[in-house]
């Protein structure tokens, strides 16, 4: 009988195509520091609508850089740089890397230092073992963190500290207002 050519397979009707910008693979991608993986529109050949999503089964070892928002559900080891964009580590994401981004939202696991120019948001069940450096850090109830947190704003002069009663700043994560003890302040 006729033998079907395996090279030409019909697309199943009603099959769900891979969403735009969604990387799905069972392969491990190894990159050298000289050739970082880039999540740019030209590399994807896409219209660039919606964030890029690295799927659960993807493992990337090496350097990951880009200029658009990225969500990682897979495993990444090495270094991630999205200095002008938002990086989201999904609930299934496991990162062993140094992370640099404008803003980082963590719902999965991160082992390594996280540096953000705007904000780090560690959500419920998110986990970070490493140091965080960002002007704003929000940590939800149920999150795990071990390491140091540096919220000094780089490039800005250090604000002079109030002598006795600093004002509470508007912050989504705090409602507290410090109140110094004048007696102790005078002892020093």
């Amino acid at each position: 009988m006729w033998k079907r050519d395996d090279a030409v397979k019909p697309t199943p009707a009603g099959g769900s195509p891979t969403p735009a910008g969604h990387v799905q693979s069972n392969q491990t991608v190894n990159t050298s520091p000289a050739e970082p993986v880039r999540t740019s529109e030209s590399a994807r050949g896409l219209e660039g609508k919606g964030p890029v999503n690295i799927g659960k089964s993807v493992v990337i070892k090496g350097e990951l850089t880009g200029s658009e928002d990225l969500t990682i559900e897979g495993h990444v080891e090495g270094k991630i740089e999205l200095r002008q964009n938002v990086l989201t580590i999904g609930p299934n994401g496991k990162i062993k890397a140094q992370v640099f981004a404008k803003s980082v939202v963590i719902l999965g696991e991160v082992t390594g230092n996280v540096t953000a120019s705007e904000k780090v948001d560690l959500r419920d069940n998110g986990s970070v073992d490493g140091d965080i450096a960002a002007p704003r850090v929000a940590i939800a109830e149920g999150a795990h963190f071990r390491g140091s947190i540096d919220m000094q704003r780089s490039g800005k002069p250090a604000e002079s500290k109030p002598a006795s009663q600093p004002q509470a700043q508007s912050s989504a994560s705090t409602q507290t207002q410090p109140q110094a003890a004048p007696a102790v302040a005078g002892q020093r």
Partner: protein
Amino acid sequence: MSISDLLKFGNKRPDEPVPAPAADAPAPKGPETVVPSKALTKFIAALQHQDAPVLIDFGPVIGTNVAFFGEQLGCKLHIEDLAKDIDRQTRAGTREQLPEMLAARFPQTDASVDGVLCWDIFDFLEPVAARALAREIVRVLRPGGAVMGFFCTKAVDRAGFTKYEIVEATSSLRHRHHPGTGGPKFVLQNRDIIKMFDGLSVSESFLLKSNTREILLRKRA
């Protein structure tokens, strides 16, 4: 079992042993309370005199505390979460390793820290482990630095962890249940505290209504 026995003892025989809780079961969850803290106010005042103070927190991470110390006081925070370490060692039945572990636990260099928030971690340490931890605190603390801790006055066989959230203009702490197996609580006498923090002096000491001692120690500048 007669009807009178049932009325007297319920469905349980009087000589029936009460089942012991599993060793790794979490301690019962207590109510959340807000307790005024005089030592915290003085601890914060001590930090406000430093430029970009470095702070170690021995408790589990709490978002509001991080925001307060990091954003408002400009502290660099080290979250060490010793409750998790104690929980792990208690569950594994290897609490005898705690002194050695604590002696090698902190990567901070000598005299590099301005404040240490111990909370009630010392209550969950045997005296040998408590001394090991106190030595490390004295080592990393800068001259002029402050240490704040709670010390119980009554030993308990098994207690759960508490985490402390700063509330109400930093003059109060919300005591909240934290999951984990804390293990027994040990009482340190005042003289033991003074002795083990050799090099620090007790700056303030308050006895709370709960019979917990709230103590602030300072390293001489």
